[in-house]
């Protein structure tokens, strides 16, 4: 009896918190709605809006994996210290860029479309942003983290352009002539 109760409790608690496969759509839907509400809220200052929005996306975006992918093979050659420094700088860059994009928000509607399971540990979520004279496709790419079986975003594709791929290309080009230290500084 006790065992059953413990297992039941444990399972129910896990499903409450983890971004599970079947919850991705729901979680993202509520997150998008929250962000839009914040953007539309006229009583908040820009700084308050930024802080609130960052908090909403923080637990679904895996910045550390993003920074690793963006450096590609070079990541392994970094010292521990450089790794932490780079991850920190990259996280700041990504957040800053994301908040900057949100500042352009002009009453666009967001439609969450379908979830696609690409591989056992990869899921994409397609969304449409309806602007004034155009509709933009935004795809969120999720991966399953082995350590805790939760899903995190590792890349976002805006109208066919992958954000992390773009950084990868830029960083590899940059590192052909310059050092990692310079790269961290330039971020």
């Amino acid at each position: 009896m006790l065992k059953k109760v413990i297992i039941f409790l444990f399972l129910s608690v896990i499903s409450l918190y983890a971004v599970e496969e079947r919850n991705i759509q729901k979680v993202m839907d509520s997150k998008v709605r929250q962000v839009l509400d914040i953007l539309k809220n006229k009583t908040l200052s820009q700084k308050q809006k930024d802080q609130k929005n960052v908090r909403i996306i923080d637990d679904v975006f895996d910045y550390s994996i993003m920074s690793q992918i963006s450096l590609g093979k070079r990541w392994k050659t970094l010292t521990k210290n450089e790794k932490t420094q780079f991850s920190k700088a990259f996280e700041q860059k990504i957040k800053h860029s994301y908040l900057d994009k949100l500042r352009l928000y002009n009453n666009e509607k967001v439609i969450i479309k379908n979830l696609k399971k690409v591989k056992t540990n990869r899921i994409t979520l397609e969304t449409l942003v309806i602007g004034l004279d155009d509709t933009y496709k935004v795809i969120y790419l999720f991966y399953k983290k082995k350590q805790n079986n939760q899903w995190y975003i590792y890349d976002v594709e805006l109208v066919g352009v992958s954000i992390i791929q773009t950084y990868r290309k830029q960083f590899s080009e940059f590192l052909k002539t310059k050092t990692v230290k310079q790269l961290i500084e330039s971020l």
Partner: protein
Amino acid sequence: MKFFYIFLAIILFTFQGCTTKEANPEFNHTHIKTDAMTSDPLTINTTDDQKKENQTEEFEEEFNEEFEEEFSEQETNTASDPLSGYNRWMTSFNDTFTLYALNPISEAYATIVPQPLRLGLSNAVDNIQFPIRFANNLLQGKFQNSSDELGRFIINSTVGLAGLIDVATNQMTTPIPAHDEDFGQTLGYYGIGSGFHVVLPFIGPSNIRDIVGITADAYLSPLVNVRGLENYKIPNNLGQTIGIYSVHTINKTSLHLGEYENLREDAVDLYPFFRDIYEQKRNADIAE
């Protein structure tokens, strides 16, 4: 006994809360470790810790290779860039032009012309470019898309007052989606490579394939003058064509103010940044 269950539940809740609140546990993990390493190397150098560390590193490695494969597959090919010197120069020329001429003019234009009118003009220009989309969907064997485009053109040209209102997208119960295709995409569809990258003055990033595409589409577009096709074309000479495109560009920019400045902020180096996003976008358009 009852209290025990409740107590257990509370404990479990708090533990779960702790684990998920850590946005990036991996990152924190390494961070703490390096701190400990630098401050006191003696206490941490036990074999147990090292073993664990090796395990997680192996784990990371295997995992990263999967990502590495995924991302290198999609990488745009920019190995040959014979015009890079010129391209770089033209990118900074276009950049200066956009920042100091096009954007201020568009901003001023936006304050004079009300938004619905600007939107209408943008729609009308899109509508009149219908032959390009229709033909290129046909050429790629996308017959449903061609018929969608034809339907859109008929509806928007009539009910939509010569294309000023995009009725097919906004006012229909089942909207007919637009299917933007051009001859560059058609060539790509049949497996023709992009050729090397060329930055065009005022127009921006392009490549050999897309320059051929733009030229072919110009024959189909009613907005570009071509000798011998005067009856079909709206402008009668090059000057008028340039005039139409200038107004169109200013109008379009006025609907997207601030976006260019915002985008260029993401660049570490402007030219490779724009080159890469252009090639990625084109590849995605062709694959669609």
